[in-house]
């Protein structure tokens, strides 16, 4: 064996240039330029928009707090709260059996296929589209909003329950079966204790998600604060718009605190109960006094909230009588589908939607990365920076993409630029939150080693954190892109470009056969993006 060459060209460099990566970067930049050109995103428009934006912001401040407006705000918020409570209660209740039916480790194959189909159907269409259909079926108002959010809740919670059940340990289940327990007893004693903590987490999350979404369904006639917001926009009451948005953010933050509390009661500690000495022997109580009190308080509050919501919400029963007829009529008018609408309008809109989602996601990642670094406690040690970062995440996430789109349409004018900005800004919260968590989970060892060697901050981030965070980073980006495709499909309802514009135009003209076509296209796009992301996820991550 010859000696290893000590110097010269044979010795490889520690960090050789990665040519595939460089080529990918060039292609990536080329795509961004191309997509921006398709969407007519130009620098002048952006600058002009900033100018508009300054004026727009000027008209927003100070927020309007006149008494009559506050009354409107209160009415709208209360209705939204009622919508969210009823939709969460009913949706979660329905999701429990549906999730169980979809679990492949407990149910026979045909049942799971049916249940999974139903769940997929609930998840395919954006709540706004579902709300539009329900508004047509049961009329304007809260009921349509409630029904739309029940569908959304069902799709989300049932899927997560099914996954939780499939991931649980089968060992205790086997033991209970071996003891001859009937199926429902196996579920109660074996399945429920295992999935309850995660289930409570989902339900709590869904409550504040529905609170956010109830602002959304109002935009299309589903009642609640969204209706108030939309009216304020149409009247150019921008100072009142700001009041409403602040109120929504505050409500969502309050909801997050509440759901954290709920999780603490139910999730962390299962009840232990207690044993008391009785005259004839030990007496078993399933809960200790504290546990029982907490539980009673929880269920009492839940029952009161539901009761109050049902009592006071405005539902016009007359609208319900002809709902089945209206629904049948709606679908009858969609058939036969007007395929000619595709070539003339829908195809361009579809391309616009896909580019909006992609550019929006890219921009979101660029914006979210510094915020995530601010939030991660192992990168930014200042508590003020952490708190500011967290506030940005919650605030961007609390306001829905469609509401952001309304704002950006006012700033940049109608079109895809407003859509891209809306998608990007709303995604900061979601992307940033997961990135910050991934950064905080990075192993401290390599980072300490780099710091100990005197590496500058930039090098620590690039060579210490980045390799560890990369998989999570890719996963989050992909997941968010998937969501953003759905979001982008409806942005046109408020004028921010894409398939929504085609949908709105068809609805305004009462061409239901064209509406049918747009729905079919959205369905197809959602299915294809799910397939694409799952393939990419399996290959890359």
């Amino acid at each position, binding site marked *: 064996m010859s000696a290893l060459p000590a110097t010269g060209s044979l010795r490889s460099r520690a960090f050789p240039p990665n040519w595939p990566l460089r080529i990918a970067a060039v292609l990536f930049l080329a795509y961004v330029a191309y997509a921006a050109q398709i969407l007519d995103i130009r620098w002048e428009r952006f600058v002009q928009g900033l100018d508009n934006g300054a004026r727009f912001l000027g008209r927003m401040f100070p927020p309007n707090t006149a008494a009559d407006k506050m009354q409107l705000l209160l009415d709208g918020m209360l209705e939204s709260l009622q919508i969210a409570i009823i939709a969460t209660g009913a949706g979660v209740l329905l999701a429990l059996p549906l999730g169980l039916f979809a679990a492949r480790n407990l149910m026979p194959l045909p049942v799971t296929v049916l249940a999974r189909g139903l769940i997929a159907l609930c998840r395919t269409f954006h709540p706004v589209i579902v709300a539009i259909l329900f508004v047509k079926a049961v009329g304007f108002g809260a009921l349509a909003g409630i029904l739309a959010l029940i569908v959304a809740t069902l799709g989300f919670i049932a899927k997560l329950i099914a996954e939780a059940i499939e991931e649980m340990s089968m060992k205790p289940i086997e*033991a209970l079966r*071996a003891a*001859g327990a009937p199926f429902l007893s196996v579920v109660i004693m074996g399945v429920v*204790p295992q999935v*309850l903590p995660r289930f409570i987490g989902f339900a709590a999350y869904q409550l504040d998600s529905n609170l956010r979404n109830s602002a959304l369904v109002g935009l299309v006639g589903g009642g609640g604060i969204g209706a108030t917001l939309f009216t304020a926009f149409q009247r150019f009451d921008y100072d009142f718009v700001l009041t409403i948005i602040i109120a929504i953010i505050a409500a969502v933050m309050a909801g997050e605190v509440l759901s954290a509390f709920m999780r603490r009661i139910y999730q962390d500690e299962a009840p232990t109960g207690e044993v008391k000495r009785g005259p004839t022997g030990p007496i078993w109580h399933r809960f200790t006094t504290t546990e029982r009190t907490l539980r009673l308080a929880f269920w009492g509050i839940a029952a009161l909230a539901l009761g109050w919501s049902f009592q006071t919400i405005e539902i016009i029963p007359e609208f319900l009588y002809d709902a089945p007829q209206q629904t049948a009529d709606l679908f009858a008018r969609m058939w036969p589908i007007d395929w000619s609408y595709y070539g003339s309008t829908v195809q361009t809109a579809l391309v616009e939607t896909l580019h909006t989602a992609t550019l929006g996601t890219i921009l979101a990642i660029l914006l979210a990365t510094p915020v995530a670094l601010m939030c991660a406690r192992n990168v930014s040690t200042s508590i003020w920076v952490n708190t500011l970062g967290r506030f940005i995440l919650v605030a961007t996430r609390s306001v829905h993409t469609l509401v952001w789109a309304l704002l950006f349409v006012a700033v940049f004018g109608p079109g895809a630029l407003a859509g891209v900005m809306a998608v990007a800004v709303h995604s900061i919260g979601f992307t940033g939150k997961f990135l910050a968590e991934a950064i905080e989970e990075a192993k401290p060892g390599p980072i300490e080693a780099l710091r100990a060697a005197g590496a500058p901050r930039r090098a620590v981030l690039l060579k210490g954190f980045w390799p560890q965070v990369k998989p999570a980073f890719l996963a989050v980006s992909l997941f968010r892109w998937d969501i953003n495709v759905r979001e982008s499909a409806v942005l046109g309802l408020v004028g921010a470009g894409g398939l929504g514009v085609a949908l709105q135009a068809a609805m305004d003209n009462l061409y239901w056969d064209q509406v049918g076509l747009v729905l079919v296209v959205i369905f197809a796009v959602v299915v294809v993006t799910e397939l694409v992301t799952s393939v990419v996820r399996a290959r890359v991550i």
Partner: protein
Amino acid sequence: MSALPNEASGTCRTLIIRNLVKEYRAGQPVLRDISLTIDEPGTVAIIGPSGTGKSTLIRCINRLVDPTSGSIMLDGVDLAKLQGDALRQARRRLGMVFQEYNLVERLTVIENVLCGRLGYVPVWRSWTRRFPEADIARAFALLESVGLGDFATRRADQLSGGQRQRVGIARAVMQEPDLVLADEPTSSLDPKTSVEIMELLAEVGRDRGIPVLVNIHNVALAKRYARRIIGMSKGLIVYDGPPAGLQDSHLAEIYGGEGWME
């Protein structure tokens, strides 16, 4: 440790297995033609190398595994043919103890023991945890007898391995079984705890007058506690008799080779 409550169920049931075959994949039998009769109370140990079908045999008896052919007669009922409700009814009388305890981790010890009654009580009782008074009293007595009297409200995931297995045994006895099946009950435990668990299983068999069928890797433990030893190799029974009759030649046949016996 006090003795288990004496609740001997009278005469011992008879288990007769005839020509039992199990193939997970067609043409590759794990059990080939097993026949044996168990009609006396006490511990019966099944020994044999890993992968020889000991677990499959035990799981065929309570039908956690469905046999390919053969019959498993318990008091004149063929367990191999039962379905649905009839199978559930039959399983109530077959207690099972698992290698990894198979407790519901997030439930308390007393709830885990009461799980043994699930086959007897209606569903609403498991939902509300309102088990019959008598069941709860028995659960406490059983916990006392396995030495866990003070652990009733402890969560199962807070217990040590040995304690968990005691809960597992209490759950099986809670079923008022005619037969206890134990699938490697000591394989996840340290030597001292293993002895205690075997002791406890032997006690169950003795006090209740029922057979306890135990799969076990540890030959010394098997010889110490079993009344009868069944040696299995490659899906067949190669030894069936008292521990005293088990010679090194038998062990060599069961496990193959002799180097491991020192």
